[in-house]
């Protein structure tokens, strides 16, 4: 089986080949790979593919995994129904950071 056709990001159906192509075209960080391929931009927000994308970038560039800056984490941690915000009805009172 041709492994380059494997899906790395299952939400957005991005293949190994597409990740490698982005790196060949000049993406040098995990955020850049994400922005150019959409890997990690789907429903799970990279929970599944983040580490695999990092491994590909590490392998292609020869940089160690621990040297790679992870792509940006943002809230919410899990998908949140919009209606919940309305039900909570906190408007001006909470200035809690979402991340």
């Amino acid at each position, binding site marked *: 089986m041709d492994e380059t056709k494997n899906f790395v990001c299952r939400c957005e159906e991005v293949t190994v080949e597409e990740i490698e192509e982005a790196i060949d*075209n000049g*993406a040098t960080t995990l955020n850049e790979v994400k922005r150019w391929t959409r890997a990690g931009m789907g*429903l799970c927000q990279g929970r599944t593919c983040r580490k695999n994308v990092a491994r590909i970038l590490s392998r292609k560039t020869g940089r160690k995994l621990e040297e790679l800056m992870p792509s940006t984490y943002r809230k*919410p941690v899990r*998908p949140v*129904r*919009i*209606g919940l915000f309305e039900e909570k009805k906190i408007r001006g009172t909470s*200035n809690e950071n979402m*991340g």
Partner: protein
Amino acid sequence: MKKVFDVIIIGAGIIGLSTAYYLTKKGKKVLMLEKKEIGSGSSGACDDMILLQSKKPGILLQMALESFEMYKCLSEELNTDLEFQTRGGMILIENQEQLKIMEDFVRKQRSYGLDVELIDKRDVKKKQPLVNDRVIASTYSPIDSQVNPLRVMKGFYMKSIERGMEIDKPSSVTALKKLSNGYWEVVTDNNKCYHAEVVINAAGAWAAEVGKFAGVEIPIKPKKGQIAVTEQIPCVGETNIWDADYIVTKLDPVLAEKRDRILAELGIGLSFTQTLDGNYLIGGTREFVGFDTKTTYQGISNILSQVLKFFPVLRNVHIIRTFAGLRPASIDGKPFLGEVKDKEGFFIAAGHEGDGIALAPITGKIMAQMICGETLSLPVDELSPDRLKTHCKPS
């Protein structure tokens, strides 16, 4: 070791990359300096609109119309699908007060050749069957469009590299000096030293910081815009959406004072637009909080209550991500384009605030024309950094 270029561009956002593209097209040897990543500032943390309707009649509307024409051909030119679509746009109106102001605004925009009209409630419902009954009318422009900024940057970047552009990233400028031979010397934190006849400050919200190295004070401040992203869903209506509530406060100071305190503080103006992939981007806030890019519960929940006000059907749709970008807000709401007086060879192309994506192609083209001494596609005198002086003086 020094390397010599024709032009050094500081900032690999959409403005810098567009400028690089049009300069390399004219055969210029360009170096791009980026302190973080391609599009890591505002250009990768914004929505996707080429909103013509929000532009004040004048040079910015002219530039937006010109960019709109350019975007039509850019996918082919850059050999990248930019996901350019023209779905039209509507600004939803809730009361007579808003209607009166929007009528006048639409009239002025039409006089500049913008294809826009007011439509009544029945026609609003035809285009937006799921909209709430509180909407009494709406503007409608069939030519409001959208484009994927990430694709645009990729396209400009790859084509410029193909034409010989070099890039140094991550690389942050630490000194800018005019040499006696007329060249600018740029030193970076990774101990590189570059020379060029022309330096372009395209650092967006960071333009003021870069300006300091050249002894130029640039009145551009970061303005935070928070946005929520939904899961991929089917199309909610025919066009992208904005609300008049925020736009009228920009046009009428009396209404601005009457606005809800929290909405005014957060600078909330609804924008509701669907990407080609099916995610809706729901914005946004406009906050002066320095370089902080955190998203807040207060900001996001207020944005979402605005969208629910018009589209209650979204209650059961999920938010999968929130993000925030720093819009480069200039002191008078207009970008700075051009050479700085008494700093020969030092150019600014920054301060587009929320219009960077819409204005990028024409900005890049005009900057390249300026640097090559050609006739400009549009007269942009009023965007000249010469007006910096007037603003710097205490009045």
